[in-house]
């Protein structure tokens, strides 16, 4: 690891001023991704400002939802009574990610800022436009079985790895940030992460020096029918090949509201807008779920080695919606073992 200056911030203003003054400085949250990237020499900040002692760790009720602190850990958030009761989709998604040890360290703000696990990005001897703009994309014509089927560009086909963010996308979360020239601002979740376009090195729309202070979850009536399904190569502690956050509210047998977001398929959490549109107002039946999945996946553009993801994602949408419909408990017994 290359040398860097380390400091601890006691308040957000100090943290923001210190990072803003140095284009090569970074906030250090749980460090579970940042430290790894520094060890691999993918990133080499000249200064780290530890922000885990800042007070943005609470989870509190607001007039129209819940605010979760940017510095709260993933474990704390997933297990908080308010989240488990009202946003079980978020709890499930967080608990599907990484391991207990990592969730105990990782912060909510840091989770949103984690970077792709594309092997070409991680291997500094390979070309990668995300790591080194202009160097090319090793994955486009290389081994791309884990890569994007939606929204990619010739410059980058990497996928975004967070499970938590897929649920936040479905829940229409809002990111609260502080710093920069504007002081404080809010970013709707759909606008937080970016598609690669010509600048894949920019993962999201945070500006240098901006700090995620909290994430707002608007109130909804989706809790009774929600499910986070994660498909991976081993049953735990692996990144998703494809994941689905599915939630709906019902009016009798009809679908009043429905949210579907996919992980592992694009440069950002992929909101399945076509599928949602098809399902709204229709009966909650497996036939309709299948039609919705087909509509969404008809727009997929797989690469050479990841055509399997098209069928996998379609099947996963149907399965996740079915579990969500059944209110099928949340967990392996009620969910993954039941027939669809």
């Amino acid at each position, binding site marked *: *690891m*290359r*040398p*860097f*200056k*380390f400091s*601890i911030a006691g308040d957000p203003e100090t943290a923001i001023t210190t990072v803003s003054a140095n284009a090569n400085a970074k906030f*250090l949250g749980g*460090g*579970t991704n940042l*430290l*790894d990237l520094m*060890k*691999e020499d993918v990133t080499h900040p000249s200064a*780290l400002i*530890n922000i*885990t002692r800042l007070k943005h760790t609470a989870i509190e009720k607001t007039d129209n939802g819940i605010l979760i602190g940017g510095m709260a850990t993933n*474990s704390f958030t*997933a*297990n908080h*009574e308010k989240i*488990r*009761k009202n946003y*079980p989709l978020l*709890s*499930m998604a967080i*608990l*599907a990610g*990484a*391991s*207990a*040890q*990592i969730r*105990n*360290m990782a912060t909510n703000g840091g989770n949103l800022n984690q970077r792709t696990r594309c092997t070409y990005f991680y291997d500094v001897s390979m070309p990668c436009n995300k790591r080194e703009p202009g160097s090319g994309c090793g994955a486009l014509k290389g081994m791309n079985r884990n890569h994007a089927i939606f929204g990619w560009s010739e410059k980058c086909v990497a996928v975004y790895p967070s499970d938590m963010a897929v649920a936040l996308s479905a829940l229409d979360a809002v990111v609260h940030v502080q710093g920069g020239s504007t002081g404080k601002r809010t970013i709707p979740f759909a606008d937080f992460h970016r598609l690669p376009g010509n600048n894949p090195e920019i993962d999201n729309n945070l500006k240098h020096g901006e700090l995620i202070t909290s994430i707002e979850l608007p109130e909804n009536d989706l*809790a009774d029918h929600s499910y986070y399904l*994660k498909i991976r190569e081993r*049953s*735990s*502690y692996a990144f998703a090949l494809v994941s689905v956050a599915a939630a709906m509210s019902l009016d009798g047998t009809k679908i009043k509201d429905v949210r579907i977001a996919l992980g592992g398929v694009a440069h950002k959490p992929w909101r399945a807008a076509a599928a949602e549109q098809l399902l709204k107002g229709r009966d909650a039946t497996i036939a309709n779920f299948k039609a919705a999945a087909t509509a969404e996946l008809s727009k997929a553009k797989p690469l050479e080695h990841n055509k399997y993801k098209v069928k996998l994602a379609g099947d996963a949408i149907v399965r996740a919606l079915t579990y969500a419909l059944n209110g099928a*408990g*949340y*967990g*392996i*017994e*009620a969910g993954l073992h039941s027939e669809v």
Partner: protein
Amino acid sequence: MEDQPKFPDLTDAERSALEELMPDEISEIITSGMKRRHFLKLFTFTGTGLLATHLLGIEQLMARSATGNPLPPTGIENGINVSFKVNGNTQQLLLDSRMTLLDALRERLDLTGSKKGCDHGQCGACTVIIDGRRVLSCLTLAATCEDREVTTIEGLADGNKLHPMQEAFIKHDGFQCGYCTPGQICSAVALVNEAKDGEASYVTNNIRKTGKAVELSDEEIRERMSGNICRCGAYPNIVNAIREVQGDKAVAQVWQFADGTI
């Protein structure tokens, strides 16, 4: 061995225990430490309970040389003074800002129980407990540990009494090469507390039900231990050990010494 490791004097109890078990080799052990053949011999001399007691004696014998005098720093860049507690002892160290907690424990405090496996957060061999929560020491900068309380495998036993999880791992042979074992045991100790506190996992049934201790099925234990990888595949025995500590019933031991070896 040209450089013989220095060991402190044995207590009377330790000396008599060793003399009783291995009268021929006691002097060699005292001068050159515990070797594998001593270990194997000890193993054949003793039953499981005895083995546990004596392993602890040896472990403490080895560990004692490590406390009190942190190793001096070398080649520090952007030095940070850190004061934190490790296994109940306050430590004050001047550290390179790049140093991970794992390296500080192993290289500066000589606490080599926590193992460096992948060094990238993928294997769990370096798991320690900070302020009651299990974390990966390879992804923790030591500089972030100011005022924290760190517990490593060396700090789990209570004096001469092994932690119940350590005893259960021995009873159920929850290790083969043993390299991942310290991290597994730290993880398992924290896991039991997490379940008691009602914390959910991805496989917990009905995550919306809160406030109740979670009963650990084998499925739950496997999911919760999935951050600790064991290449030998000692998993079934590890699950048995954790079930034993978490539940109130003894779990049957699936191995025993062959006839005639004791």
